[in-house]
């Protein structure tokens, strides 16, 4: 599936300057997200996938800094835009659904107010009354029961799932072109995870937006996404469409991840886990970052970083096993 590129990330590097040393959270990433698709960025906790999302919005909290790279959104480089223009894009063209809806909402304001201010901030001339009416419409759209009552509620009066629905209604309030969902279901009860994901997909279709899903949940990826990029320690190790990736994973890390998914139909003595530990991001191993845990490691893996290789059309992998040498 290839079409018009909506978001292109080139050689993005985000470093955190901590007392312990420089943490290279994102270390040279290239990505392309096409208009209309659902793109997943997967990886384990701490691999830098959320940092990529934050870097797209240029909101990296200190001591983090975007060291290099460019982020093109509809052809404009977001990293060199003046702050004011970027603010107009945040929350409007690029919306963000966060991981924990409970801490994303200000406890002192009603849900209606917080949705309305998102609308008023971006559609300058809108009256608060109209914004409020639109917020009500949005709440109905995200299937909040008794929206007329709920709109006047404070966040502490709502359940986690409802709060996430409120956050989602904020994110679609300005008809975004790109919707970044950063682990949207992690903080929620398992029983409503599917509801929330279905809602996001329904709204994606309705508003004709592009979805960038950031998750560690491969089940969600298989269910909802078109293409996948797998991240390991600040680098992308494999990019493919979802069928290819699940059927024919090439990178040893991806293979390990897929093997580690429990299969409810098969009884196993021990669930597979990738051997070894994630190395400290301050002292990265030289060469390929996965080498210390990789069972196929060769000499070259310790010396040189593997390049991104297009093994077959639109299936990229960063591993020396597939280098034609």
């Amino acid at each position: 599936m290839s079409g018009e590129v909506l978001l292109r990330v080139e050689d993005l590097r985000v470093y955190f300057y901590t007392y312990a040393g420089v943490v290279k959270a994102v270390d040279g990433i290239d990505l392309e997200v096409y208009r209309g698709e659902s793109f997943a960025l997967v990886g384990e906790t701490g691999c830098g996938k959320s940092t990529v999302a934050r870097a797209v919005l240029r909101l990296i909290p200190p001591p983090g800094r975007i060291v290099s790279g460019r982020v093109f959104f509809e052809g404009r480089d977001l990293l060199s835009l003046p702050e004011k223009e970027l603010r107009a894009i945040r929350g409007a063209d690029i919306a963000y659904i966060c991981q924990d809806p409970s801490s994303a909402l200000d406890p002192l304001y009603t849900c209606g107010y917080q949705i309305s201010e998102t609308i008023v901030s971006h559609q300058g001339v809108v009256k608060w009354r109209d914004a409020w009416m639109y917020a009500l419409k949005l709440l109905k759209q995200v299937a909040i029961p008794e929206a007329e009552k709920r709109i006047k509620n404070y966040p502490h009066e709502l359940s986690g799932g409802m709060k996430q629905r409120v956050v989602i209604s904020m994110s679609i309030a300005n008809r975004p072109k790109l919707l970044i969902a950063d682990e949207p279901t992690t903080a929620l009860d398992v029983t409503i995870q599917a509801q929330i994901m279905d809602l996001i997909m329904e709204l994606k279709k309705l508003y004709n937006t592009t979805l960038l899903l950031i998750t560690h949940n491969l089940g969600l990826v298989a269910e909802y996404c078109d293409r996948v990029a797998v991240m390991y320690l600040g680098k992308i190790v494999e990019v493919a469409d979802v069928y290819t990736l699940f059927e024919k994973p090439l990178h040893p890390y991806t293979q390990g991840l897929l093997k580690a998914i429990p299969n409810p139909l098969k009884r196993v003595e021990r669930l597979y886990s990738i051997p070894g530990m994630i190395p400290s991001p301050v002292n990265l191993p030289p060469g390929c970052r996965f080498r210390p845990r990789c069972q196929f490691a060769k000499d070259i893996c310790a010396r040189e970083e593997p390049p991104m290789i297009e093994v077959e059309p639109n299936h990229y992998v960063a591993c020396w096993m597939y280098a034609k040498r």
Partner: protein
Amino acid sequence: MGELKYYLIRRLLTFIPTIIGVTLLTFLIARVIPANPAVLWAGGIKAKPEVVQLLIKKYHLDKPPHIQYFYYLKDIFTGHWGISPVTHRPVIADIATYFPATAELALFSLFVTIFIGIPLGVISALKKDTWIDHVVRIIAISGASMPVFWLGIILQWIFYYSLGLLPATGRGIPPRITYTGLYLLDSLLCGDFEAFRSNLQHIILPGFTLAYPCIGLVARITRSSVLDVLSADFIDYARIRGLKPSFVFRHVFRNASIPIITILGLLFGSLLCGAVITETVFSWPGLGTYTVAAISNIDYPAIMGVTLIIGLVYVTVNLIVDILYAIIDPRIRL
């Protein structure tokens, strides 16, 4: 809004036992004084025994404490709060004379604290670890460590003696009509601008002296609570949503305001009591001088009167603080 209403009713009801507690404590504090006050009131050891007896009878000193408390309450509710054996005036009349001056000074200092302390705190949070932040820190430390009388004298020396800009003592010309006893307010109400100017000039030095330790404290509290809120996820998310900076600031300020209001409520109490020294330095005709005189004369109707009025103000301020909490934070209304 129903929750807020119930909260207010509940909170107002707790006001009543608090007030009764205040009167009880006031009474007990005054009774702790071991000396026999009647002798002192009558004029010392040489006083005639029949005069002492008369005073003991008049002030019910021969009755058991609970009866005395009853008489005390009766005095409060009948309106004159007892007759001072020293000034021979109803205590309430004395307080009505002196209290407005103290209240005016404390209120003025409170406003100075708010309008200087809070902006300083916000700026030092936004410009954390820059020179502004360090200057505010120095103000706070010096405010906490500098004795009030010393600061008062230095300010008098600079602004009165050296520069001749501001008067050193007194309250200035009284306004033509007094409604509240707060000169600044009264002179504005009756349009007496000459008096207003004079009153303002007179209150600046004592007001600032009294406020100075509080400014630093409020600035530091504001700084830390603003920093706290700035690191909250919902502020982060407000930026992610691309809210206008003024909207983001609204979230920051409202969330940061609870600790600030708490400290302001407490400070107002200490401003009222702390006014004693400042009043002495600036010859401010307030409750401070009156209280000191009452204590040295063991004039306990007066002592109790002063304690009670300060207690009442303190409790009322706390009530206002609690109501503000509930207005700001919906979770407190529960």
